């Protein structure tokens, strides 16, 4: 008679149930109250008209706002730029992030110092780093121009951010500079759960550093990679400060979030702003889900 013991009640399993719930309550409560609830409100906003501010009666307008933002040519351009930022930034961050994490995973004298230096770009308030980068890329008096002129690599000052492609690349570099510490730390955190002994075993098996990396580190970093990719995408898809400081709202570098910012904070049009932001969130969520699934193959 299978399952006849179940009548006794499964205390072990029940305790696990209860503890599970207790442990997730604080997290769910915080996120539920301060993110999910406002999110629902925000969604309501995105399907409402902008209200009296735009000469309309308040009320639900269905998907109109979404259609508006998706049909707007500037939004479309911004989406294309954003895609470029994301692809470029995320691939750079992935490669550099793993490189940095693997380097810092080894304990060596002075690692503390390097770790401290590593996080500086991230700790620098964005206004300050914006101003510094502006000094670097300034077309007239910038550091970059003056160095390159000095080295005779260029013979007249360049307006770095004027052209489309170039500007997007430079801005992405600035973005990556600021985000790399976070991505590196995510990978570093991931490496903490890799046991030393597999490195011993693989060394004996004849794997050099590169192949240890390829066959041991990389596979074991899979879960972290999903996180890093998601976070990297998240940050790149909402790239803002770097563009705003270096090139304002110029059309050739405008990202979606600048568009969102203009719509919400400049034009006070929260209806369209949130609609566009929701589009952005949906894209990120889809990408994040995709990464997580693609990299899920459990490691242990």
């Amino acid at each position, binding site marked *: 008679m299978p399952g006849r013991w179940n009548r006794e009640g499964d205390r072990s399993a029940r305790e696990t149930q209860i503890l599970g719930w207790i442990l997730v309550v604080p997290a769910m409560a915080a996120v539920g109250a301060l993110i999910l609830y406002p999110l629902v409100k925000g969604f309501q906003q995105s399907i409402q008209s902008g*209200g*009296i*501010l*735009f*000469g309309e009666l308040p009320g639900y307008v269905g998907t109109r706002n979404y259609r508006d933002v998706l049909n707007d040519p*500037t939004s479309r351009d911004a989406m294309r730029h954003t895609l470029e930022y994301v692809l470029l930034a995320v691939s750079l961050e992935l490669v550099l992030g793993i490189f940095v994490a693997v380097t810092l995973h080894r304990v060596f004298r002075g690692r503390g110092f390097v770790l401290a230096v590593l996080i500086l770009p991230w700790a620098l308030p964005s206004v300050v780093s914006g101003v510094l980068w*502006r000094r670097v890329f*300034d*077309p*007239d*008096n910038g550091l970059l121009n003056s160095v390159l002129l000095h080295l005779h690599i260029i013979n007249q*000052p360049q*307006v*770095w*951010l*004027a052209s*489309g492609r170039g500007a997007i690349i430079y801005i992405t570099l600035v973005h990556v500079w600021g985000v790399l510490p976070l991505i590196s730390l995510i990978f570093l955190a991931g490496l903490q759960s890799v046991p030393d002994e597999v490195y011993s075993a693989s060394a004996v098996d004849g794997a050099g550093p590169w192949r240890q990396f390829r066959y041991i580190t990389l596979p074991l970093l899979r879960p972290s990679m999903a996180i890093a990719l998601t976070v990297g995408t998240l940050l790149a898809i909402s790239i803002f400060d770097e563009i705003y400081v*270096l*090139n*304002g*709202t*110029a*059309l*050739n570098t*405008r990202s979606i979030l600048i568009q969102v910012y*203009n719509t*919400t*904070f*400049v*034009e*006070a*049009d*929260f209806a369209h702003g949130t609609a566009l932001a929701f589009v952005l969130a949906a894209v990120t969520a889809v990408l994040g889900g995709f990464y997580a699934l693609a990299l899920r193959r459990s490691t242990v």
Partner: protein
Amino acid sequence: GGSSSSSGSSASSESIRGQTITVLVPYVMPQKLLNQFTAETGVNVNYVRTGWDATHNKLIVANTAKTYIADVAEFDWSFTGQFAGAGWVEPLDNLLPAKTLADLKSTDAAFVSGGKTYAACYSNDFRLSMYNKQMFAKAGITSFPATFDELATDIQKLQASGVKYPLQIPMAATEGGITPWYLLTLAMGGQLFDQNLKPVFQTPDSAGYKALQWEADAVKNGWVSPGSVALNDDVALNDFLAGQSAILFATGPGNLPTANDPSQSSIVGKAALGLVPGVDGPGASFGLPEGLSIPVTAKHKAAAAAFINWWEQPKNAIAIYKTQGSLPCGTSTIKQMVATGQLQGGDVLNQELTHVGPLFQAGAPIWYSQFSADAQGLANAAVKGQMSVQDALTQLADKASARTQ
């Protein structure tokens, strides 16, 4: 001035005693002055200094949420359409003494919407030029050009005397980079919009078109450095202060003291203000004043009004000017400052003030911010040559027209 009588509004000063108001303004205010206000009115002030860029964001969020944020809040001329249209701020017409309002008449035009005044000006900002007297002298120019033709000639003279890029105009895709176009449009004798808020800048014979073309040509002709297309107004000022150019176009009056501050400027004593050039004789300029408003969510409106009124008194306005550098607005205050020589470049300022009007005759429209955001991107694309002037302005006009529907 007679402080006790002027600080009391129509509401009895007793009823506000003991109240605490929050004031949200992007400038520092010495505690000493606030103490004086408290001593006079019994109102305590919680003075919140915000970041310049952040102020608008904070107000937008709080107001959209219909939530209290301050009793007295910053109010830029560009907010007028938006904030008044949304009903976020109280009209001041009945809250401030008539005398104070009358004194502010000239500057407050920018804050009027639907016949009501929504803010009291405290920072009298408008656009004019600044130039380097020494460079002018070296090029043999004796006075600042009054017309665009003279300007062109002078620029060539300056170039001949060794100034590579005599002109400094910020043209980045930012608010600071778009104002020169507005200014040029007015200076060339035109308007951006007609009385019905229809765009009038898209035909080649319009002032707006000519103005943008002029900017694009300035880049092409090498009057300005190639980097100008990515230049923001603060950097433009810095470059001018470093002595890199002879003329800073479309700057604010508060920058002359800065040019004479040896810790910031390499051209101390060499800078002078110049009137905005025009087609024949000085052209029109426009004001970008900042004012103090009372949000509808304010808790102590009477006390807030008392504070604004206190600020506008010449004695206080001048004291505040000395710490903040924002030019007062009241006609009597300016007079007093010019008379006592407390205003650097006072004569030019006084002259320019006669050419200053609001950018929008009927007050900034509700969609001004959208228009400005569109203009920034499109004008920038035009001066970069990524788009023709015609295309940029046509697109801009189309967008603007769509908004007015």
